[in-house]
């Protein structure tokens, strides 16, 4: 019972944040809505028992990646999006309702299919850091090391690309 309640509260918060991201004109407001989405998704991960992934979502995604976005928005000081002209109205009139229809259809199909059979146990925290570390260092060691090289390349790339030409 309480699981349903928590799922719906955080789910509604996430969807509200996502819709707000589309509705807002200023990028800062969109960024803040995205942070709300990420926070509510972290709560959903906790409901699914993935505690390590939830807190990493907060630390890395909401606490570092989004800070980077907000930095760039503040530095570039990009103003509000002007009200869209000709071609974008077509996108609004056909694209957005189409996306809405597809989203609702997909959601309805998924809910109808599995509503009776399966269920996700809640509160059984089996995403503990120890277990995830065992997975990362034994079966998935190669991807783990490769991602560290990837991050190094990304750091170097970002520094080179954003450097001012002296």
């Amino acid at each position, binding site marked *: 019972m309480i699981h*349903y309640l928590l*799922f719906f509260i955080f*789910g509604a918060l996430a*969807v509200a944040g*996502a819709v707000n*991201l*589309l509705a807002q004109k200023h*990028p800062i407001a969109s960024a803040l809505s*995205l942070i709300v989405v990420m926070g509510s*998704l972290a709560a*959903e*991960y906790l*409901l*699914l*028992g*993935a505690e390590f992934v939830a807190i990493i979502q907060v630390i*890395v*995604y909401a606490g570092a990646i989004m800070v*980077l*976005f907000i930095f*760039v928005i503040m530095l*570039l000081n*990009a103003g509000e*999006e002007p009200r*869209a002209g000709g071609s*974008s109205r077509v996108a609004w009139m056909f*694209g*957005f309702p189409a*996306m809405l229809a597809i*989203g*609702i259809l*997909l*959601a309805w199909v*998924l*809910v*109808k*299919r*599995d*509503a009776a*059979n*399966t*269920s*996700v146990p809640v509160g059984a925290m*089996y*995403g503990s850091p120890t*277990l*995830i570390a065992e*997975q990362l260092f034994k079966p*998935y060691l190669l*991807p783990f090391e490769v*991602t560290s090289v990837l*991050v190094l390349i*990304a*750091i170097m*790339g*970002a*520094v*080179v*690309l954003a450097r*001012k030409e002296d």
Partner: protein
Amino acid sequence: MVPLGYYLALSAILFACGVAGFLIKRNIITIFMSIELMLNAVNLSFVAFAAHWHVLSGQVFVFFVMVVAAAESAVGLAIIIAVFRTRATLDVDRVDLLKL
């Protein structure tokens, strides 16, 4: 106990919002944020399936998705800064030619 389908439905709705944002918006940074929203939606379905099948691989994959998303957003934002420096605009409709 919340059925698996509900989590997948939430993930689908968020993914749809991400795609809509990617197609509708004109500010490069907002388009980028829609990409992050799509990645988050996918993460949610990974974790939901991991909980459903009681396998930890889903959560490990989410970890990798987050690392890749961090790397991609760092490089992408650096590119956006470089584009802003030459074109002085963040409107994606005006950055559509290689010619300045």
